């Protein structure tokens, strides 16, 4: 399960995964307030990409995902 370091790489990989099969791809957010962490996973059950946030980035990822 590869983990991406930059948002740009992750969002490109995520979009690619979605375009390959829109019905299979899903995004999972896991938020832990106690750890101050947000983990974003994009998967189609064959392949998974992870991205972990500790810093507050503008939550444009939410908007990006929904628009897709």
């Amino acid at each position, binding site marked *: 399960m590869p983990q991406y370091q930059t948002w740009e790489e992750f969002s490109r990989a995520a979009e690619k995964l979605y375009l390959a099969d829109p019905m299979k791809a899903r*995004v*999972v957010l896991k938020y*832990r*307030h106690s750890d*101050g962490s947000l983990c974003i996973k994009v998967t189609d059950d064959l392949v998974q990409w992870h991205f972990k946030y500790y*810093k507050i980035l503008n*939550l444009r990822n939410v*908007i990006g995902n929904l628009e897709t």
Partner: protein
Amino acid sequence: GLYSWETVTQLPATYAPKAKSHRPDCKFLTELTRLFQKCRLSGSVFITLKKYDGRTKPIPRKGSVEGFEPSDNKCLLRATDGKKKISTVVSSKEVNKFQMAYSNLLRANMDGLKKRDKKSKSKKSKAAQ
């Protein structure tokens, strides 16, 4: 009677979400806020987002469901804290309004993420120029 070997090894039909358990958007957002509040001290909030074609019955392995026309403009949102599960369907008609409320909700509730420190912020803006 005995099941035939064929039946036993059959894979389950494609899962379809139960339509009656989807809450309307506003109720979903209220309950999502509650989930975040419940998990502030410990635990995780999981949110899943995927494209949804409007199916309410599993698609059988052989053949297809009569009269089912897949829609192209919906997405399914699920949230859970590991115990309580909630879900909602958002269509493209509602997406703008929903998105605003949803992203405000996330911003307000995911406030535990550490703030970006000023040094790296200025580095970033310099790189962008």
